[in-house]
């Protein structure tokens, strides 16, 4: 516990001296990612060996080298599909963040309205929203719109619930101090509650962005003319399993990119919470 709290000044200090510190940082980063990297390489090697030794048909389990071959050969198609899916994820995620944040703010700021809204939000959360995908296709067509709607209904909830917790876990003594100098509810919200909620919001956004990728893929499964999900479905009906895996690789890379952009923003701007790493 002490180590966690003390980590904060150490991290700020490490970031402040550039020259030798940067090399040391790189070494630390290398040491941190080494185990994950080694495990990843190990799994790939075993996969390749299994596929080759047991001579598995390529439509059952293609070896990683074959997948890389497809990635290169189909890079143009895959690139366009990735662009289509990335656009869906981006718009869906941004709207989820905005709507989720707005719901949290409304619930926190207007208690009576919040009491009406909160149970409905929770109730809605229990609807299996993936099952709504065909409806959205029916209502909004095969293009961008139904995917965005699906992503929003899936991904706004973790944003809303995390931010709400952040808005509400404020030291009551601090609120009393603010009230004692005549702070209005809006001032308390703006100066204390919203900044306090930002680390929680970031946690919610990280969950939301992974859900957004899932939403985009499911949305494309339900009906689409382009995108990585569409490609996965199309390739699997054609028994082009290598292409399925190639598209899966791109989906994963896409998801990771989005995730680490948020992570970077968090480390850069919202760095006052003690962390365990």
């Amino acid at each position: 516990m002490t180590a966690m709290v003390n980590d904060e000044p150490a991290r700020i200090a490490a970031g402040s001296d550039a020259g030798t510190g940067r090399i040391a940082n790189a070494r630390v980063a290398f040491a941190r990612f080494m185990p994950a990297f080694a495990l990843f390489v190990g799994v790939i090697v075993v996969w390749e060996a299994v596929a080759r030794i047991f001579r598995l048909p390529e439509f059952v389990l293609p070896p990683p080298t074959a997948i890389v071959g497809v990635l290169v050969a189909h890079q143009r198609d895959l690139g366009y599909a990735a662009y289509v899916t990335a656009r869906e994820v981006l718009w869906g995620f941004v709207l989820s963040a905005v709507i989720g944040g707005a719901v949290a703010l409304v619930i926190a700021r207007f208690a009576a309205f919040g009491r009406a809204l909160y149970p409905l939000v929770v109730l809605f959360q229990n609807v299996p929203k993936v099952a709504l995908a065909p409806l959205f296709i029916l209502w909004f067509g095969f293009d961008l719109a139904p995917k965005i709607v699906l992503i929003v209904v899936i991904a706004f909830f973790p944003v809303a619930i995390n931010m709400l917790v952040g808005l509400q876990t404020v030291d009551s003594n601090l609120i009393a101090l603010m009230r004692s100098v005549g702070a209005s509810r809006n001032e308390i919200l703006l100066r204390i509650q919203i900044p306090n909620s930002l680390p929680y919001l970031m946690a919610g956004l990280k969950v939301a962005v992974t859900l957004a990728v899932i939403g985009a893929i499911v949305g494309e499964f339900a009906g689409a003319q382009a995108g990585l999900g569409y490609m996965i479905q199309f390739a699997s009906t054609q028994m082009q399993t290598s292409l399925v895996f190639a598209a899966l690789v791109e989906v994963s890379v896409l998801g990771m990119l989005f995730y680490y952009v948020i992570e970077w923003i968090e480390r850069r701007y919202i760095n006052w919470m003690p962390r365990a790493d």
Partner: protein
Amino acid sequence: MPLAMSASSSTPAQAPAHILARGVCVDFTVAGRVNRVLHDISLAVPKGGFVSLIGPSGCGKSTLLKVLAGLLAPTAGDVSVAGVAPIEAVRQRRIGIVFQEATLLPWKNALDNVALLMEVAHAGRTADEIRQRALDMLRLVGLEHAADKRPAQLSGGMRQRVSIARALALDPEVLMMDEPFGALDAITREEMSEFLLEIWERTKKTIVLVTHSIDEAAFLSREVNVMATNPARIIEATPIDLPYPRNEESYAAPEFARATARLRRLLKEGHRQAVAA
């Protein structure tokens, strides 16, 4: 002329009370049962006085402080601070509050934390004036070098100094402190006690301090209100005849030994009665 002399050198007890409580009772209703937290409390604190409330955990000393600070309305009885009701005194910014936890905003540096309440209070100060005043307050508590440090980069004692600077920033007449050094280690605690006396002598504030440390109460206060439970009440207002300025050597003074011995005896008596009841 001799008459005038004797009037001006009046003892604290004869000075007009700055904080006055008469027959204060506080009841909390928990699950339909009425709990008397404070019973018929009366006390008087002269202007510029330093009075402590000491007693076992759960004796209601923090509740009494909340009543005096206008954070809690008593069930019965009258309270006045500087001649007006505590709520009104709070509105007139006559009361500064320091809690056991420093309750600083982790995303703001020390300077901005000190400036926070001034910014909200809109006391006709410009941003520059607020900044200057916040700097002055940090200088007063010996932390001008840490103005741009965030709470996580400060020690517990330093955080509490920032909290005291924040309370002093609005220039209140009264400082209400709820176990302000309770979370600090023994050495830091004694340092902070000496520091608080220095601040008190320089600023001439009226201070009410809640503590459960006999040494702290005796070292700091002009008068100690000893509290007991069952029913929660003040059993004695013990004057501490230890000359100011007090410093490290005061702990060895015979008056200090006498005072702590008396406080200890009173607390034990109160405890025995509570156990017997």
